[in-house]
C-alpha cells in the first residue's frame, strides 16, 4: 500500500475514534435528558425509555472499543 494511502487511513481512523468519543458523550446527554424528563413527567413507559437510553450508552461505548480494535 502506498504511504499516502496509509496516512489517509490513519487520518480516517482518527476521525472515526473522535466521532465515536463525541457520540459517547452525546449518549450520556441522552441518558441525562431521559432521566430528567422522566422525573418531570412520569408515565408507564418511562422505565423502558430510561433502560433504552442506558442500552444506547452501552452501544456508544462499544463503538469506541470496536473502532479501536477493527480499524
Amino acid at each position: 500500500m502506498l504511504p499516502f494511502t496509509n496516512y489517509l487511513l490513519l487520518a480516517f481512523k482518527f476521525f472515526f475514534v473522535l466521532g465515536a468519543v463525541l457520540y459517547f458523550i452525546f449518549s450520556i446527554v441522552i441518558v441525562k435528558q431521559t432521566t430528567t424528563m422522566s422525573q418531570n413527567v412520569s408515565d408507564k413507559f418511562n422505565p423502558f425509555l430510561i433502560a433504552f437510553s442506558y442500552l444506547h450508552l452501552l452501544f456508544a461505548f462499544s463503538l469506541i472499543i470496536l473502532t479501536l480494535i477493527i480499524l
Partner: protein
Amino acid sequence: MSRSSNLDNVAPDDIIVTPKPKSINPTKTTISPTPPSSSVNSAYRQKINEILGHTKHPFSAFLAHPKVFSFKEKDDQEVILLVLRQHWFTNVGWIVIAVLMALAPLLLRFIPLLASFPLNYQFISVLFWYLITITFIFERFLSWYFNVYIITDERVVDIDFNNLLDKKFSEAKISMIQDITSRVSGLSQTILNYGTVYIQTASEVPEIQFEKVPNPEKVILVLQQLRQEEEQEALEGRVR
C-alpha cells in the same frame, strides 16, 4: 386640642376595637357552613366522563383519566382528567425520514461510495450511520412523548421540552380562563380530526396553546364544564 395631635392620636393604621355589646339573649345561634354540593360537582364530572370516554392505549395522544401518569408540579389533591400529546399524524414526517435513513446503506450496493475503503472501514461507517439513525428516532420520540398538555380539575398545564437545557412549564387556573378557541386547518387535520386549541387566560401567561391535539372540540367541551364547575364552586365559596 390642635389638629396634628388629634391625628397622631387616631392613626389610620391603628386597629379600632369597638366593645362588644353584652348579649341580652344568650341563645346560641350557630351558622353551619354551606354543605358541599357534591351532587352538582358529580353532575359536572359525569358530563366530563361522558365527553372523554376511556382510553386504553398507553401511547395514545388523548389519555382520558390516566391511572399511572403524573407530573412533578402536581398537587396531592389535584385530579388529572386529560393528558394530550400531539396527534400521531404529526410524527409521520420524521418516521418517513427515519425509514429512508435506515434504508440508505442499501443504496451503497448501487452507488459504491465507500468502495475505495477497506471492508472494516465500510463496516464501521455503516454502524455509525445506524447509531445516528437510532438516536434521531429516539430523540424525536422523546420530544413527542414528553411534550404534554394536561387538564386537571384545577388548571391547564403545558410542559415543553426542547432539549436538556430547555424546559418550559406554563399553567393557568381554570378560573382564569377567559376564552377558548380551536383551529382545525388543512386536509390532514380535517380528515383525522385534530387541531390547535388556544386558551386565553387572565393569568401571567396570556395564552396557552395545545398544538395539534386530537379531538379539539372535546377539549373545549371539557374546559367549558370545568369552568362552570369552578364558577359554581366560587359561588358556594368552595374555592381551593
